[in-house]
């Protein structure tokens, strides 16, 4: 409604002045984002409730107890299968709209009110588009590459689901004790798909793109994992659920704020005999900020975001590994790329920004959770942490789009030397600085 209203306002302006002010653009974008978010979140939650509550009860009434149990365990999977396409559809639209706002354009606004359905229409177009396999391509690998690229992004959701829902209800079976390690291991598989796709296309650009993406992914995986190891030293756990639990109790207990030691900084100000304690807190806080920056830089490079999108540099490699891909195969590459971005941002908000915790004190958070813990639809307390985590991830995604609009693409030798000569030595030093800080423990 509100989107149409804003559009109407625009239509009534004098035609030669058709350039809505940025206020109109930003507010209509927020309306659009709100509606898309409700669709994504609503569809996912309804799916979970269906699979965790209604279908098993129905099956139990009919006497199929075994199948009811199986359906109950399938609830996380169903949630992910709804979340991935809806989320990627929104993220593409989101990115195009924000880029348009940042470069003072209108962006897509034809399909649906204010371009609401643009990417949904794109998805349908891609489904119906002719599938061209280039001459001389390795047909099996050419078809296999998008599947290999897409598959792991689904798997990487398991530990994130457990952290996002506090292990309530059917999500208890997602609680992996090696959460971070699992995500790291799984998220290094997709690059195989890129290399295979680049090689199988029988195209020089694709081959170069595939090789570049392989070299880039392995170079930036090292600083990313080393940074995560520093975080493991700080938090003392590799279970995502435990890491989230350690950050209970308001905004200053989040890991980015000196792993919950922000109160030590208060000792700095009288500059007395306790100021060394304050200095310790300050160094810890600075280390956390450095670790976050390094994580987000190397993670963006890992998922080929601009300014690190060398594998698909449009101006030199004509989209690199997916030059020859059309239709649904191209869509799978696209879907997986945006889902990987979402996973990276979810992990960042779990590691640094309190995961599913609200920025309120422990008591009031428990009060909010207990409101939903015994409803007619069963235990719905997972709704609150998951919505908080998603919103935090979306804020980080907004930052990555902002970076995309701001920075130009790096040169390839700069990209490689930035990782090997700067990030990797720095992340190795970071591990020891963090370890020494933790062994002092004032």
């Amino acid at each position: 409604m509100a989107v149409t209203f804003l559009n109407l306002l625009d239509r009534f302006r004098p035609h030669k002045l058709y350039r809505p002010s940025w206020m109109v653009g930003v507010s209509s974008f927020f309306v659009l984002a709100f509606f898309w978010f409700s669709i994504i979140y609503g569809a996912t939650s309804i799916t979970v409730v269906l699979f965790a509550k209604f279908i098993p009860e129905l099956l139990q009434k009919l006497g199929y107890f075994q199948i009811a149990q199986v359906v109950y365990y399938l609830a996380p999977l169903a949630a992910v299968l709804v979340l991935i396409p809806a989320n990627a559809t929104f993220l593409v639209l989101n990115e195009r709209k924000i880029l348009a706002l940042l470069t003072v354009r209108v962006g897509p606004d034809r399909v649906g009110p204010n371009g609401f359905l643009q990417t949904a229409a794109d998805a349908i177009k891609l489904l119906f588009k002719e599938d061209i396999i280039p001459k001389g391509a390795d047909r099996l690998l050419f078809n296999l590459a998008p599947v290999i690229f897409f598959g792991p992004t689904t798997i990487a959701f398991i530990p994130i689901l457990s952290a996002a829902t506090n292990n309530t209800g059917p999500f208890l079976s997602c609680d992996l004790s090696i959460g971070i390690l699992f995500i790291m291991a799984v998220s290094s598989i997709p690059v195989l798909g890129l290399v295979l796709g680049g090689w199988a296309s029988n195209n020089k650009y694709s081959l170069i793109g595939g090789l570049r993406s392989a070299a880039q992914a392995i170079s930036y995986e090292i600083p990313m994992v080393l940074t995560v190891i520093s975080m493991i030293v700080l938090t003392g756990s590799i279970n995502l659920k435990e890491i989230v639990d350690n950050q209970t109790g308001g905004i200053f207990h989040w890991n980015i704020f000196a792993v919950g030691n922000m109160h030590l900084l208060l000792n700095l100000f009288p500059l007395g005999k306790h100021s060394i304690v304050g200095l310790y807190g300050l160094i810890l806080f600075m280390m956390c900020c450095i670790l976050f920056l390094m994580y987000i830089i190397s993670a963006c490079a890992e998922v080929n975001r601009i300014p690190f999108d060398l594998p698909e540099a449009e101006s030199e490699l004509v989209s690199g590994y997916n030059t020859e891909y059309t239709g649904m195969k191209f869509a799978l590459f696209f879907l997986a790329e945006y889902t990987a971005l979402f996973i990276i941002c979810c992990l960042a908000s779990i590691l640094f920004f309190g995961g599913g915790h609200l920025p309120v004190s422990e008591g009031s958070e428990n009060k909010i959770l207990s409101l939903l813990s015994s409803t007619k639809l069963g235990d719905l307390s997972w709704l609150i942490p998951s919505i908080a985590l998603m919103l935090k991830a979306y804020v980080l995604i907004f930052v990555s789009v902002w970076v995309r609009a701001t920075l130009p693409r790096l040169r390839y030798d700069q990209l490689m030397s930035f990782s090997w000569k700067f990030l990797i030595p720095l992340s190795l030093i970071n591990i020891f600085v963090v370890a020494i800080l933790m062994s002092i423990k004032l």
Partner: protein
Amino acid sequence: MSSQLAQIAIFTVVGFVLGATLLILSATIQKIFGMKNPTKVKTESYECGMKAFHDSNIQFDIKYYLFALMFIVFDVEFVFLVPWATIFDIATNKMFLIGEAFIFVFILVLGLYYAWQKGVLEFD
């Protein structure tokens, strides 16, 4: 624990099968609507609108291989560092742990330094 393993197995199978299903769905739609019409020009591999000059199996820089080689060393390093990092919080003799990890990482850094001096990290 078995329910977690089952969950991983289900996600793995469905993740890959879903991608394949989408491809098959799109192929079926094309078969039904008869949209498949590959002409000789259309299936030519793209090279800026020109006919492709050579075979696409071009030579590429040995540097890519050297980076992959160095990555394997660091990748194994993670595997050894993650357990170290996990028990660090509950360990009693922390300085001893740091010393151990330092020796381990120092040897690897020597290798990195050697590669750096040999010019492996320079792309030109």
